[in-house]
């Protein structure tokens, strides 16, 4: 082009810009006349004016810097692969998040896969970016839920900041939807799970704020997990929410260097009206977004679309989405209603909580799974499809058919479980009480589930002592799964790692690490149990669900004191009991509203009263008061009701109240062996021996390795006059512990009832040997050899009577013991005198008076019948 021509182009160009758009063509036509070349030239240049954005509009240095920023925000992945950071060996890049690359890595300590999310090195010095990074870790780690991707830890090694999160296999919902719309059954399953996760987050005061398909992960195991709490926000009561600045999003969307096309738009599409309108956000924003996600899942289309961001935002606030039924006629009407309710524009019209939405989804799922009625909800095309499938699958059993139609329901057939004592990784033996306490509470929490058989704590403790392969033991005990793990405690942090092993399949089903502030230990305990229950997908009643997720409100220091008390209580020695009392008292002082602490106190006084170590009139009322206080503070504390039942039975002699309380205890913790044993004791007192045996058997089944529960079944058989079965149980108890005195004593009595003198003598000798009473043992043997069986027994009873009499000068001795020995010696007057005393002070075991053969010598005396009547024994 010649300079003159160029000059003409320039003049015309600027002149044309002076005229309005509508007149411009006319102006140029006239100005250029015949010169079509000039006209085309100017016209084509003017199109540049209409180009709103060009790389030229910002300095090159800025564009390049943004390009660098974009690259560094998505850093090169090859550098980290194969490296070891902290105790993680980085394997490979598996994805990209908003803040960088995510790697699969191996946790070298725990030998498990984790996902590592790195803060790009270039951002490490940036406080704002670091804050966001930490916020994600904090928000998510405050939540432990099977449907929320678990954050294990956030750490910094040599300036590299990273978050270790649960490694998930599967794909995001975004990828899943991209393949094809999801079947209703699948939508329902993950929608319910997401609701569950959201409910937990919301309850913890955390709003996700960015629920979208890319943030929902569907694991290959078939469960859904909420990802990326990077923009989550904690609700601060009384404080206005900081809304996401939509104008910033707009900038981001048109900023090509920072945002890959669609990223920000993708987020916008699931925004709630209040988010789009930059208004204050509450938990209901997540409900709306979930509704939008479900809309897309069922239809494959976004509910709100537009050419530009502003249009999408406008649609969210004003327009109704295309009705789902017109896009996919297979979607059940009820699901359409649920999605519609979640996506109501005014908040008050929406579901008011995730749990409310979940309840509707669950009802729908049950209806769909629940047989014929469900078919009505399915529209004809799918019905035809199903019927066709039915023809092909006709030869298969119904469950398989269901599985084929609806997909596997995910059950892994775990019906029984044992919680092995958690390992103490604190490195401090003094922390054992805490570790044991964690094991104990975890076990108790699991016993809340009726359809799950939970091996008692006592039995679980024995498993490792058996020195047999775990799998073998588990199979012997009829266990499907084993939960093991460890506890570490450092300062105010407590870390529990738990691992669930499917015994039948010999594989790890699940592993999780929980890192919490000690303040949250109560919540942590119930969360772990909840997670386990979720993993094994056992059936839960709504009440069980509620109880599982509820936890006590003890002050952490009081709870800690309670755990120390229980530690000594379980040690079951007089000195240990004294210590436990001390701790329980301290716990009550530390927090007078700590239910467990009162329950612990109750437990202490039961032992004192039941074992005849303290006067019943002193011990039992204290135990009752403590238990009553405990149930008042926590009406769902099962063990306290079991304790009250003990009081009712052994001291108050109020059988109906005893039965009522024990039933409540069993209802609250169906898997608690102790409660079943308690019930068995009540039933035998009432003479309902068959029921007593059934309860005792159940307790024994829950605690097959517990010597005391095996012996307890022996005693139940004994009182039911089923001598041989009793003998079998006592022998089994002795197989486990040959020194267990109670079982030897049981055998002696059984043999005596059966007239097996030799065996009885032998057992008595063993008993004396174990009790380390060699002098008495020798005398007994001599008497037997010289004067025979009856004389030897008399000699023994006399000696014991003398022992107790002299002891009674120093300490409290239950008059019932003295009455028992006198009865055996056939010293009726003395026996009745002591019995009267026992009646006066309500000796604990007096309730067995009617069924205990020790008192057979007294039965014919009218005073005996009268006493039985006065006690009120049926």
């Amino acid at each position, binding site marked *: 082009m010649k300079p003159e021509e160029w000059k003409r182009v320039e003049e015309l160009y600027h002149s044309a810009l002076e005229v309005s758009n509508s007149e411009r063509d006319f102006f140029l036509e006239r100005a250029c006349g015949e010169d079509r070349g000039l006209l085309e030239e100017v016209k084509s240049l*003017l199109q540049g004016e209409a180009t709103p954005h060009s790389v030229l509009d910002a*300095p090159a240095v800025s564009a390049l810097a943004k390009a660098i920023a974009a690259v560094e925000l998505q850093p090169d992945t090859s550098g980290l692969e194969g490296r070891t950071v902290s105790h993680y060996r980085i394997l490979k890049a598996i994805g990209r998040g908003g803040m960088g690359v995510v790697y699969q890595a191996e946790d070298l300590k725990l030998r498990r896969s984790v996902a590592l999310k790195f803060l790009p090195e270039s951002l490490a010095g940036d406080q704002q970016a670091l804050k966001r990074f930490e916020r994600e870790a904090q928000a998510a780690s405050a939540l432990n839920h099977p449907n929320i991707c678990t954050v294990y830890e956030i750490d910094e090694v040599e300036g590299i900041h990273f978050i270790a999160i649960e490694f998930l296999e599967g794909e995001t919902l975004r990828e899943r939807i991209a393949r094809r719309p999801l079947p209703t059954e699948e939508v329902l399953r993950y929608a319910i799970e997401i609701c569950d996760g959201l409910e937990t987050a919301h309850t913890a005061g955390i709003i996700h704020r960015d629920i979208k398909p890319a943030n929902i992960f569907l694991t290959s195991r078939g469960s859904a997990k909420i990802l990326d709490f990077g923009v989550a926000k904690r609700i601060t009561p009384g404080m206005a929410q900081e809304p996401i600045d939509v104008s910033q999003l707009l900038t981001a969307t048109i900023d090509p260097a920072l945002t890959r096309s669609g990223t920000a738009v993708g987020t916008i599409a699931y925004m709630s009206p209040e988010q789009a309108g930059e208004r204050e956000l509450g938990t209901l924003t997540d409900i709306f977004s979930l509704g939008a996600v479900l809309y897309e899942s069922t239809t494959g289309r976004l509910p709100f679309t537009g050419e530009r961001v502003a249009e999408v935002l406008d649609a969210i606030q004003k327009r109704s989405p295309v009705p789902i039924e017109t896009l996919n006629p297979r979607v059940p009407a009820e699901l359409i209603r649920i999605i519609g309710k979640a996506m109501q524009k005014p908040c008050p019209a929406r579901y008011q909580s995730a749990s409310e939405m979940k309840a509707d989804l669950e009802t729908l799922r049950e209806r769909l799974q629940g047989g014929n009625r469900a078919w009505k909800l399915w529209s004809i095309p799918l019905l035809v499809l199903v019927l066709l499938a039915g023809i092909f699958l006709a030869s298969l059993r119904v469950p398989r058919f269901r599985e084929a139609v609806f997909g596997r329901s995910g059950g892994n057939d775990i019906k029984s479980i044992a919680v092995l004592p958690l390992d103490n990784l604190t490195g401090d033996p003094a922390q054992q009480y805490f570790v044991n306490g964690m094991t104990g509470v975890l076990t108790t929490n699991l016993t809340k589930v009726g359809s799950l058989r939970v091996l008692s704590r006592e039995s679980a403790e024995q498993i490792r002592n058996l020195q047999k392969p775990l799998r073998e033991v588990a199979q012997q005990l009829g266990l499907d799964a084993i939960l093991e793990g460890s506890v570490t405690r450092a300062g105010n942090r407590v870390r529990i790692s738990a691992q669930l092993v499917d015994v039948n399949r010999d594989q790890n089903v699940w592993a999780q690490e929980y890192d919490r502030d000690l303040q949250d230990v109560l919540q942590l305990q119930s969360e772990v149990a909840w997670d386990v229950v979720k993993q094994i997908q056992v059936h839960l009643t709504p009440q069980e669900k509620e109880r599982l997720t509820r936890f006590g409100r003890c002050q952490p220091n009081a709870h800690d004191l309670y755990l120390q008390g229980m530690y000594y209580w379980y040690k079951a020695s007089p000195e240990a009991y004294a210590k436990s009392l001390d701790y329980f008292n301290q716990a009550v002082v530390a927090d007078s509203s700590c239910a467990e602490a009162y329950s612990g106190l109750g437990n202490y006084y039961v032992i004192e009263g039941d074992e005849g170590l303290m006067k019943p009139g002193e011990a039992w009322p204290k135990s009752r008061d403590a238990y009553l206080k405990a149930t008042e503070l926590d009406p769902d504390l099962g063990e306290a009701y079991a304790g009250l039942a003990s009081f009712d039975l052994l001291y108050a002699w109020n059988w109906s109240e005893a039965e009522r309380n024990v039933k409540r205890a069993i209802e609250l913790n169906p898997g608690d062996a102790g409660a079943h044993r308690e019930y068995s004791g009540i039933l035998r007192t009432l003479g309902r021996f068959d029921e007593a045996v059934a309860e005792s058997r159940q307790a024994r089944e829950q605690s097959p390795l517990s010597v005391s529960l095996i012996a307890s079944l022996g005693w139940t058989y004994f009182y039911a006059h089923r001598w041989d079965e009793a003998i079998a149980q006592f022998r089994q108890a002795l197989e486990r512990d040959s020194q267990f005195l109670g079982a030897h004593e049981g055998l002696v009595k059984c043999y005596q009832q059966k007239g097996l003198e030799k065996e009885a003598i032998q057992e008595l000798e063993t008993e004396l040997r174990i009790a380390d009473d060699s002098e008495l043992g020798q005398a007994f043997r001599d008497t037997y050899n010289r004067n025979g069986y009856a004389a030897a027994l008399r000699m023994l009873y006399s000696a014991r009577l003398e022992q107790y009499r002299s002891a009674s000068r120093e300490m409290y001795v239950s008059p019932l013991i003295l009455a028992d020995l006198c009865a055996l010696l056939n010293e009726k007057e003395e026996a009745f005198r002591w019995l009267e005393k026992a009646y006066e002070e309500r000796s604990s075991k007096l309730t067995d008076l009617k069924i205990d053969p020790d008192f057979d010598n007294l039965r014919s005396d009218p005073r005996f019948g009268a006493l039985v009547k006065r006690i009120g024994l049926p």
Partner: protein
Amino acid sequence: MDSTGEQAAPVQQHDVTRLLRAWGGGDEQALEQLMPLVYRELHRLAHRYMAREPMGQTLQTTALVNEVYLRLIDVKKIDWQDRAHFYALCARLMRRILVDFARSRSYQKRGAGVAHLQLDEAMAMSAMIGSEIVAIDDALRRLAALDPRKSQVIELRFFGGLTVEETAAALKISPETVMRDWRLARSWLIRELNPEAAHET
């Protein structure tokens, strides 16, 4: 604020001024010494962008770029008469270095010197910016043949990052003329870069 940069700047400013003079005087060696300094500023600027959340705040581009220059050159210490010359020199320098840099990113063949800035294949957007800058450089050569002043306006503003007033001062023309030149040159370049679809974004 990056504390290391704050401390290093005064020393560097002196160096940059000296090196820039040397390079202006034809010393190509000086360019090699200037390059890492400019890269450093480029990265610092990049970090400033990264510091914003991905959905971040509106970036005060002009302010940030000005900061780059203030770091590189202590303008106040340069004679008023000299300043125009310096602006021009600076813009030329930036053009040279940035285009080299963009080219290395686009083709990845010369990326060795900036190894830690390896191009991520997925970041097509970055690559696009790189190739656009290279294309602008090429087109600018053609524009210089047609209208040297307009080419200079682009060089000063786009590569040099100068404001309209600074550009005007450097070229000794009025700001209005700078605006007029800029407008036409911009349209011309857009058409050159995308001849078939100049109307598209």
